[in-house]
């Protein structure tokens, strides 16, 4: 034991010919007449610049944590009053000063569910076409046009839904679903066009560009050897896509879907304008509802005291959901995410 320790001690102090510890002195400039003589190579301006840039870049970090702290602080009234019951409280009543988040969590889940159900298959179809099937000259323009969907501001989607989508929903889509699925609790009531179904469809349109472009990137990242292997054993284009491309890129596609989900959860304006704004839980998709984001948008101006505090607690819940969803998506997609079209609507 003693011998081993002795050897270890020796190795620490005595290293003949071994690498020397590099000291500050070694990275200093030399040269006889040089002004820089004796100064480290990393001097004045460099350090100032590096630390300035570092300080600025941590600004967003600081801001986000500040936001969390502020939100918890502002929501304390409501947190103290309702505790965990806030999340399952079904009533939002400013007259009695009772607030619960359930109708809005429910509304968010339902609209997001519709959006994902409609948006995901469509987006994967689009991504498949753009990455595997489209003639090369049309790939660029087509992807651009699909991404333009993301550039249209959210409030314009809402305006459009109000005057173009709503009549279509009332006259054809909703009666159609009622005639087939009218016996389920999902399609009860009269079609009015300002309901969870319309909001879900608008959301589906809005998340398509996100999911499609990220999935397309994931599919284009599949090595050609995979495709060639499938083609060489006689697979058709469809089979190649299914076996080689979709299987290989599934984690990227899944991440893209989560990313789209995140957009749908936080989307505010288009939903506020189409969902009908009713603070109640109703299973029928043809009834109006309210999401967390639309509730905040609707009640912000006049809320005070406990109501304001409750609204901020809802924002806190939304923040946590969005954070979880985005972190999950970010892990699934990896660095692909930075290539998400930078032009989103009013998320």
């Amino acid at each position, binding site marked *: 034991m003693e011998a081993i320790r002795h050897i270890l001690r020796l190795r620490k102090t005595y290293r003949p010919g071994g690498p020397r510890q590099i000291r500050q002195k070694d990275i200093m400039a030399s040269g006889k007449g040089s002004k820089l003589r004796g100064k480290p190579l*990393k001097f004045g*301006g*460099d350090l*100032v*610049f*590096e630390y300035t*840039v570092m300080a*600025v*870049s941590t*600004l*967003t*970090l600081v*801001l986000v944590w*500040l*936001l969390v702290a502020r*939100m918890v602080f502002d929501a304390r009234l409501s947190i103290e009053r309702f505790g965990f019951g806030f999340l399952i409280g079904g009533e939002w009543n400013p007259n009695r000063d009772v607030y619960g988040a359930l109708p809005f969590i429910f509304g968010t889940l339902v609209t997001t569910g519709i959006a994902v159900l409609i948006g995901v298959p469509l*987006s994967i*179809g*689009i991504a*498949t*076409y753009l990455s*595997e099937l489209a003639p090369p000259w049309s790939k660029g323009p087509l992807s651009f*046009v*699909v991404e333009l*969907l993301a*550039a*249209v*501001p*959210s*409030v*314009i*989607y809402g*305006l*459009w839904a109000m005057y*173009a989508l709503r009549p279509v929903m009332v006259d054809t889509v909703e009666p159609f679903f009622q005639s087939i699925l009218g016996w389920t609790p999902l399609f009860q009531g009269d079609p009015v066009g300002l309901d969870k179904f319309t909001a879900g469809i608008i959301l589906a349109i809005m998340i*398509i560009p996100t999911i499609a472009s990220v999935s397309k990137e994931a599919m284009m990242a599949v090595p050609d050897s995979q495709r060639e292997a499938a083609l060489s054993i006689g697979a*058709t*284009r*469809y*089979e190649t*896509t299914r076996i080689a491309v979709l299987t290989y890129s599934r984690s990227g596609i899944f991440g893209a879907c989560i*990313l789209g989900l995140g957009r749908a959860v*936080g*989307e505010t*304006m288009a939903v506020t*304008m189409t969902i009908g704004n009713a603070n109640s839980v109703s299973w029928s998709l043809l009834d109006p509802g309210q999401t967390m*984001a639309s509730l905040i*948008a609707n009640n912000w*101006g006049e809320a005070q005291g406990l109501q304001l505090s409750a609204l*901020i607690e809802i*924002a806190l819940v939304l923040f946590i959901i*969005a954070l979880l969803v985005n*972190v999950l*998506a*970010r892990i699934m997609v990896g660095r692909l*995410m*930075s290539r998400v079209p*930078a*032009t989103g609507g*009013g998320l």
Partner: protein
Amino acid sequence: MNTYEYRKLKNTLASGLALACVILALIPLVYILAGVVVKGAPALSWEFLTGRTAGTGEPGEGIGNAIVGTLLLVFYASMIGLPVGILTGVYVSEYGNNKLGTTVRFFNDVLANFPSIVVGLLAYALVVAYLNVGFSLIAGAVALSVIMIPIVANTTEEALRMVPNSLREGALALGVARWRTVLKVMLVNGRAGIVTGSLLAIARIAGETAPLLLTAFYSSYWSFSPTEPVASLPLTIFRNYNSPSEVLLQQAWGAALVLILIVLTLNIGVRLSMRQKTKKSKAVRTRWKTRLSRRD
């Protein structure tokens, strides 16, 4: 059942289905653009573009103050967001090979896809409530700049990564200090990408509505002061979309047309200039190649 014909048929069907998805997604885009032009164009006139949104529903009103408000918001937001975003990108790309760099990058990626209403709440908590400025132009600009920062930072980082390493090494080998290398070599050579990212970020924040609802609020008057509520195009649409008054509805559609023109011009312009740039650089490269090959 698994005959060649059957598989071929399945292939054709699947291809058709994929194409149908693309067409289905393009219908709303065309429909929205057409709708906004058709309904918005009749509203446009000189008085409309210079009048103010009095909100009474009388004829002769316009969206002038909303246009100015949006321009001011975008200007102030860019003043804050562009430098911070670009410097963040510089840090992540040039000095970010450490834990802090990874964290900042991660946070920017997450923030880039964050619900904008929550970002609006940040600006509300910070500027409106904490600094006690009240609903104001500057609060709206802060909210928009927070949305802008991750977009600009990510594109700056990408742009700096595209700059060939030999340029950086060349500058350093000549004895140029590192910070001057970054400012004079890296940023200058990556400027195309940075400008692109900045313009896209501006296009994005021009249409943001939810954060403004929480921060800048609205004003039907001409207002240029940073500490007063200000009108904006998206909020004009939101306030009037459901109005029974024909005039106010016209304002919403007119504002939508102006807004979409701004956003699409920026997007398409950036896209086209980017394509021309890549074409040009390719041409330059081939010219050099032929010149060099001719020499030996």
